[in-house]
């Protein structure tokens, strides 16, 4: 049971480059989320999706793009990476709205130089 996986686990990129972080879940959960974790800020929601082809902004969406063409995948793209986007990115999923409990992936540590 793979659960929720993220790739890559570590990424170093240069300022201005486009980067895509992948998230895949095997549970067929309706909801998926992207967070960034930064010291002193905890986890902040970037984008989330209630179902395939439905996405919505979270607390810090600027500079990020998401898509959800299939229920199991929820990629996060940094269109033009900036140093302020250096962070640990967590993907999470939740079965439905009544549960609210979220299941987290292992995270991707992104460094923008």
């Amino acid at each position, binding site marked *: 049971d793979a659960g929720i996986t993220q790739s890559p686990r570590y990424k170093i990129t240069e300022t201005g480059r486009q980067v895509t972080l992948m998230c895949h879940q095997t549970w067929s959960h309706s*909801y998926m*989320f992207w*967070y960034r974790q930064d010291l*002193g*800020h*905890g*986890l*902040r*929601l970037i984008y*989330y999706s*209630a179902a395939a082809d439905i996405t*919505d902004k*979270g607390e810090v969406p600027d500079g990020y793009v998401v898509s959800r063409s299939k229920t199991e995948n929820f990629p996060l793209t940094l269109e033009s990476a900036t140093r302020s986007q250096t962070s640990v990115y*967590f993907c*999470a999923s939740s079965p439905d*709205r009544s549960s*609210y*409990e*979220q*299941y*987290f*992936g*292992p*995270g991707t540590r992104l460094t923008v130089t």
Partner: protein
Amino acid sequence: AQSVSQHNHHVILSEAASLELGCNYSYGGTVNLFWYVQYPGQHLQLLLKYFSGDPLVKGIKGFEAEFIKSKFSFNLRKPSVQWSDTAEYFCAVNKGNTDKLIFGTGTRLQVFP
């Protein structure tokens, strides 16, 4: 705006000491409350949750939390900590009619043998 406050940023304890981590949120109405734990190098895992009913909730590994509606609090407790409890602890709140969790900034717990 919704906010979740964790006033203890860093807690250092010896094994067998008692633990209480504070969590306060800033709005009324129906809420669903969570504590997540992140062990070093690992992803977030659910520790316990409160939706309704008995305000004293028991979770895994001997943790419990008490929902006090009048104080807008959901403090986490453990009577006797172990070295293996060293981790970062996040409180999260869901307002009942939304899809999102709002996380606190986290409390880093270090337990020394």
